[in-house]
């Protein structure tokens, strides 16, 4: 059976533990040129996308990785052993602040949120979504934080530029998200509460 470059890349991606970057692939496949590898990767990704299968090759965290399709979530979720990932509003706010404003100190985060953020920070550090970049060169030498590679992986971002720009977010302010829902019936029965949470990007 002839060995194509696509087959090689496919097998490497399949067995990798983390997204593989183009650089890494080039290191491993010295006989092939960078452009050659890049276009083989593209073709591979397109092949998976167009076959209407359950897995895609997604570009995430500066590399490429096999991932299941998002719309198959209900099936895969049941089968996967670990508990589904959940984020509280405080975690998301804090992550957003760090993502957009890194490097950032804890007191800067707390000023922006208006609340103590020690607990959230600790939890995000433990989950390795946030990392310590160093210390700021001002009195007190406070620790500065930034997002990690895992953050990009979990949130499906190629790189930090993939974050929605803050300008786009301010534009949403003209139609505040909360006002999009209907008045809730007083007896508390409503489906719109769940819908509220499912924001379409």
């Amino acid at each position, binding site marked *: 059976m002839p060995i194509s470059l696509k087959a090689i890349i496919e097998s490497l991606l399949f067995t990798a533990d983390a997204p593989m970057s183009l650089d890494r692939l080039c290191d491993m496949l010295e006989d092939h040129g960078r452009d050659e590898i890049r276009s083989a990767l593209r073709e591979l990704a397109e092949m998976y996308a167009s076959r209407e299968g359950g897995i895609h090759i*997604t570009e995430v965290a500066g590399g490429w990785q096999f991932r299941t399709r998002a719309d198959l979530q209900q099936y895969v979720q049941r089968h996967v*052993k670990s508990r589904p990932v959940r984020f509280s509003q405080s975690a998301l706010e*804090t992550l957003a602040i760090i993502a957009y404003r890194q490097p950032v100190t804890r007191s800067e985060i707390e000023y*922006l949120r208006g609340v103590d953020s020690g607990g959230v920070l600790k939890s995000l550090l433990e989950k390795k979504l946030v990392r310590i970049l160093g210390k700021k060169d001002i009195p007190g030498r406070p620790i500065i934080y930034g997002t990690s590679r895992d953050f990009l992986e979990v949130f*499906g971002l190629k790189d930090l530029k993939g974050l929605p720009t803050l300008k786009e977010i301010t534009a949403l302010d003209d139609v505040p998200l909360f006002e999009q829902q209907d008045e809730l019936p007083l007896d508390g029965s409503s489906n719109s509460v769940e819908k509220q949470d499912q924001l379409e990007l």
Partner: protein
Amino acid sequence: MPLRFDPVLARGPVMMILEREENLSLLEGLHGAYNVQLESFEGPLDLLLHLIRKNELDVRDIPIATITRQYLDYIQLMKELNLEIAGDFLLMASTLLHIKSRMLLPQQDDEVHDEDEGDPRAELIRRLMEYQQYKEAGMLIGARALLGREVFKRPDTGETNCEVPGHDDPVELDLFSLVDAFKDLLARIPVESFHEVAPAETFSIADSINEILALLQERDMVSFDVLISEEQTRERVIVSFLAILELCRLKLIRIFQHGDTGHIWFVPAVADSTADDSSEADEFDTNCTSNLE
């Protein structure tokens, strides 16, 4: 002061601001019934944004008096419901009052201000808008297809030792097989139709342990069945079982089950056992208190 009914809070537990007159009994009922942990608002800025939205105000031009009053009402309600009020909320309350008082002072047009204040609300408004941005950014990223929630990657393979034990070979036993075997054994012994209050001889776990160890010294392996002859009472069987568990926990014996026959055997454990050897002993993490004296 009448407070309005407000069921609008899209996420998390609903915070209700009740009509005081009508629902007095409900409020009283909540008093001292339990301490409620309110998580609907992330902090004072979040609360202020909620109040601003609820009143359909423009955050760039908030009527400070109205907002302050509602905010303080809210804090008051939280106190009455025995909710924990973070210091940040109180700090904001004093900030609001401070701003309000500055707004009440007459403006000094022709003189140069000591501090180039402008609108006393300016900083608060800026903070609110900035916070709102990040709050919405947080919701946006939270709505993406997350790894481990909507989208999944191939699980870590890790090293798997796939050694299929031969059917004839003795298999190291797990707790449930042992319990099953024990159950079978116990079933063989007829249930006594009368109850002896004063047993002729009490057979403690310690005794049983000694017996088993003595047997193991004579022979290399001891079968579970050997311990239980037909004269045994249920009490003895149970005590022997507990003794075996205790010996296993103490890593003094190892327990095997024959693949085919299902007979259970135990052998003395080797003194310098590796982590693997004593692993099944670790599984026997029973709550048996040792009666050894």
